[in-house]
């Protein structure tokens, strides 16, 4: 019998529906794989009973001949940024340790309604702030990949590093991620999997721990473009509880998949060819162009002149929003409380936040507080929001000449844990290619392109017009079919 943990979303859904195996058998196989992979530290808590209960419900429905749902029988990993009723939700922070939401996030509820089950809550960078999964209070996540000839623990990327590691290690068929400035795409690229951030507003933010509300978007991470299309369909949808939710029908992305790109134009942004970019990254970009040309697309040069300013603008806007969003952690309503003897209310706030937040979170709150403070607001925050307008305008003008943009996802492959953790700025630069699409709210996807000479995966990024997830998925599918990326990490855990 096929090893069930080798199957993806589509294969599991179709196999359960067709009676090749039961949903319970699938859930049991993945529960066992999760339990055997503790060394990756991909999960903060595991929820095998949730996966089994969801599987039994799907098997019962099948026995009655009912519809099994878009994700019927597929167990997934849930990034621990989504509130899950009765299951600890921490955002990988000490300040939320032990927090058990009394409600379910809209995205996770949508997935359960579609027949999915939960294998556990996945580790991440604390409050989704990080690019290497080294800022979690619950420890680093190790990528299942290793550089050829070494045993050093490698970064799975961040912030959705538990998600990327778990999908790449085949201990989950798919996982949720969230992307504020690359947190789905960069970890997907580092681990040789696919991940899509949809247009801002496609997935409800209700019940997702807030980092930077104007940028945060949820999306799926899986091993194929088809699996991402299926799962995104299940996650997305209008939600009146999120004021920025898009009141639009969810397109049938899976049914609309088409890798024939005849008549399509693919834009190559010249400003993404930056000094110091790894030659192998540039080579993979060239191959991406060839694959898309082979699929029938015309390759055109486009310009995104404000690219170099996108990252610094992001590092004003995101911390500003974070400093405001994270003001809610005060030791009063939920989470940690530090109350030294004789301390008053103000001391309780300050002590709680000192003990509860990690260094990177503190750094960003401080930056955010500073750039929003009287006297500096115009010079920093307002200027960054104006630059953001220019970044979005650049894309708008580029999309007058092309249908989708192709770029590398990251400037380098994965690096060893610890290599960049002493230098916040060096870490931020990892998101240089991912952040512009975030600032403009555009759908963007990473698909695996090839392995570099160290045997580590490199990702290619596709960015589309607002609401054109289909165009992004189709170009991703064209690359997937031609790249023939079947490499898997060798099991060491």
């Amino acid at each position: 019998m096929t090893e069930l943990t080798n199957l993806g979303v589509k294969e599991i859904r179709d196999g359960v529906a067709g009676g090749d195996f039961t949903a319970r058998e699938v859930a049991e196989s993945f529960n066992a794989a999760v339990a055997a992979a503790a060394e990756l530290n991909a999960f903060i808590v595991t929820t095998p009973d949730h996966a089994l209960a969801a599987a039994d419900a799907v098997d019962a429905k099948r026995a009655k001949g009912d519809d099994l749902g878009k994700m019927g029988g597929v167990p997934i990993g849930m990034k621990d940024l989504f509130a899950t009723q009765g299951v600890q939700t921490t955002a990988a922070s000490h300040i939320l340790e032990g927090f058990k939401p009394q409600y379910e996030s809209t995205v996770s509820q949508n997935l359960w309604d579609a027949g999915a089950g939960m294998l556990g809550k996945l580790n991440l960078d604390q409050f989704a702030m990080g690019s290497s999964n080294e800022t979690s209070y619950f420890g680093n996540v190790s990528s299942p990949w290793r550089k050829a000839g070494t045993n050093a623990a490698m970064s799975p990327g961040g912030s959705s590093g538990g998600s990327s590691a778990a999908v790449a290690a085949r201990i989950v068929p798919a996982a949720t991620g969230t992307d504020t400035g690359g947190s789905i795409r960069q970890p997907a690229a580092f681990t040789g999997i696919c991940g899509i951030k949809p247009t801002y507003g496609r997935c409800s933010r209700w019940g997702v721990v807030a980092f930077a509300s104007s940028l945060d978007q949820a999306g799926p991470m899986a091993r194929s473009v088809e699996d991402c299309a299926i799962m995104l369909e299940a996650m997305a949808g209008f939600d009146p509880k999120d004021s920025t939710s898009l009141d639009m029908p969810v397109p049938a992305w899976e049914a609309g998949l088409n890798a024939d790109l005849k008549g399509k134009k693919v834009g190559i942004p010249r400003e993404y060819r930056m000094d110091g970019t790894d030659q192998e990254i540039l080579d993979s970009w060239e191959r991406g162009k060839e694959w898309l040309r082979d699929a029938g697309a015309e390759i055109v040069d486009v310009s995104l002149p404000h690219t170099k300013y996108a990252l610094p603008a992001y590092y004003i806007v995101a911390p500003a929003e974070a400093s405001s969003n994270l003001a809610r952690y005060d030791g009063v309503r939920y989470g940690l409380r530090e109350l030294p003897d004789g301390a008053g209310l103000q001391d309780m706030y300050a002590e709680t936040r000192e003990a509860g937040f990690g260094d990177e979170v503190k750094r960003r709150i401080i930056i955010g507080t500073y750039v929003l403070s009287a006297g500096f607001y115009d010079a920093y925050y307002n200027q960054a929001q104006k630059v953001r307008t220019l970044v979005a305008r650049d894309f708008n003008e580029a999309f007058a000449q092309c249908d989708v943009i192709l770029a590398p996802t990251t400037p380098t492959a994965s690096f060893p844990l610890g290599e960049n953790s002493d230098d916040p700025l060096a870490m931020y630069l990892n998101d240089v290619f991912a952040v512009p699409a975030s600032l403009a709210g555009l759908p963007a996807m990473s698909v695996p392109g090839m392995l570099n000479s160290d045997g580590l995966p490199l990702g290619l990024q596709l960015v589309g017009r607002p609401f054109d997830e289909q165009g992004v998925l189709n170009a991703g599918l064209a690359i997937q079919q031609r790249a023939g990326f079947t490499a898997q990490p060798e099991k060491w855990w």
Partner: protein
Amino acid sequence: MSIDRATVAKIASLARIQMSDEELDRMEPELNGILKWVEQLGEVDTSAVEPMTAVIPNTLRLRADVVDADPKTGGSRRDDVLANAPVAEHGFFGVPKVIE
């Protein structure tokens, strides 16, 4: 513009984060490094540009004028609201005394 240690301490206090001397020492150069880097935004001419307010054009909706239209976000959830409080007493959040 660079910020000194006293300014870092002031911001930390505004953000209600207690910081030890050692943390302030570490934070000061890190913050200055980041601020120096973001200041390159000053090179961009934005004199004719409006700051972004909505990344995808959208209009804010009004909810239906119905009490408890959505039971999840309506009222009568006191026990749920208090369920995770570090201290909950008599149906309220408990905090240290704030009035002398």
